[in-house]
């Protein structure tokens, strides 16, 4: 296995112009993700986590610093890293199957093979029998699963997930979390995950970066020593509790 990280950011800063004022979103971020690693960025709302994902995806370029893909800072990242935004972004005029096949369609891959693969995966995503449904006919959880399936069908080595469970109610969220663990164990892609839910972060990740409030920078990096496969039962494991308390302390929430 290649030892070099698949994604490596070095000294990345990014500012935005908002109503004539300059707002520093990220300051001197250095982070990496190894192949098949599950890395989480956690931090308070507005700390620039999503900006970091946009930078990694190639939608934005850093003001300072660089982001290397497979060791190459000048590599084109758009079209090579799949991205799941916070909202499902399903196209309302497309039926489910056409929605999840958007990636292969844009990349001009063989349609029949992609369709075959999508149909095989539908049951695992609990979407069997809904391939002809329009997005408005699906529940919130189903839409989110469809969005994840669309992301995975892009078949890239790196997947960025921006609070994929954020829009769901607590109950659906918990089911989706267990299920997301299962999906990851199975697909083994490199995942970079953004959340502000500490339990979610610890349960899913191999490594966690804790972000400060704006301007976002990394205040702590933690390895999660929990064994794989992970399960919901681990939330009483001392390693889980230790990591959770450490993150809460960094975020200034330990007095709760």
């Amino acid at each position, binding site marked *: 296995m290649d030892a070099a990280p698949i994604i490596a950011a070095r000294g990345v800063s990014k500012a935005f112009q908002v109503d004539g004022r300059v707002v520093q979103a990220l300051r001197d971020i250095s982070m990496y993700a190894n192949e098949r690693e599950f890395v989480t960025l956690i931090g308070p709302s507005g700390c620039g986590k999503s900006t970091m994902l946009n930078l990694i995806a190639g939608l934005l370029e850093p003001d300072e610093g660089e982001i290397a893909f497979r060791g190459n800072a000048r590599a084109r990242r758009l079209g090579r890293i799949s*991205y799941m935004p916070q909202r499902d972004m399903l196209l309302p*005029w497309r039926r489910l199957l056409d929605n999840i096949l*958007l990636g292969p369609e844009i*990349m001009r891959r063989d349609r029949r093979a992609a369709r075959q693969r999508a149909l095989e995966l539908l049951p695992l995503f609990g979407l069997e029998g809904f391939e002809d449904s329009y997005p408005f*006919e699906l529940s919130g959880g189903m839409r989110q699963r469809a969005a994840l399936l669309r992301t995975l069908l892009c078949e890239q080595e790196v997947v960025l997930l921006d609070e994929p469970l954020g829009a769901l109610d607590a109950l659906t969220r918990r089911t989706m979390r267990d299920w997301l663990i299962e999906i990851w164990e199975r697909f083994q892609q490199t995942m970079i995950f953004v959340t502000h839910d500490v339990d979610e972060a610890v349960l899913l990740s191999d490594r966690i970066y804790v972000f400060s409030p704006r301007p976002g920078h990394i205040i702590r990096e933690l390895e999660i020593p929990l064994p794989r496969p992970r399960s919901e039962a681990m939330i009483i494991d001392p390693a889980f509790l230790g990591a959770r308390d450490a993150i809460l302390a960094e975020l200034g929430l330990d007095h709760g």
Partner: protein
Amino acid sequence: MADRATLRRAIGTRANWVLPPLGLILALLLLWQAAVALFEIQPWLLPSPLQILRAGWAARPLLWPHVWQTTQETVLGFLSALVIGLSLGILIDRSPRVRAAIYPLLVFSQTIPIIAIAPLLIIWFGYGILPKIIVVALICFFPIVVNTADGLRATDPEQIALLRTMGATRRDTFLKVQMPGAMPMVFSGIKVGITYSVVGAIIGEWVGAARGIGVFMLRATASFRTDWVFVSIALTAALSLTLFGLVTVVERLTLGWHYAATRQERWEEISEEKR
């Protein structure tokens, strides 16, 4: 059993939409008929609906060439407006500079009275069909441009970002996200445009033409054939409604998803309220 109930409810809803306007129109016509008879109004002043119907039926062979002429002008003018309107709308969305340059001119073009332009068009292009097509196009291209530009502009930027992460070109995002998303707005513009289009053709004919509903209307007025004036009004309305209906059918066929989604939302709102 359940299916039959759903069917009956569907028919019931349809009837709820169709019956009230139909009933009102019928009642007004009856009132008109009765008033003409009761007050013994002269036919040259105000003919009764039945007299108009009889006059129209009798003048069938005379009317057909006029109706056909106006239909051609309207359809050709509307199609030109559609092509120009969509292209301009897309152009406006493409570049902020084009938007800044064209938008004020567009609004200005709508403030010029068509009645003033129509004679000029006759001077420039003669008495043929062309000046009428231009008048129709001038009248109905504006709502199409504005709605196309606004519809394209309303695209969710995150949606475009998502496609870009898949390696989409500008052409991809336009064809797969922007254009389909703008279609409901585009159709609204088309419906406003098509409603005015027949009236546009008639204004064009008034200024100078040999044939058309507008010409027939002028001749009827000049010879105090008030019944024929009403016949041409009825024909204008019928033509407009037919064209509007055709657009609606095309819209339903292409935007099935949109109607279904909107219906669902309304239904959810209603159930929320009941709770």
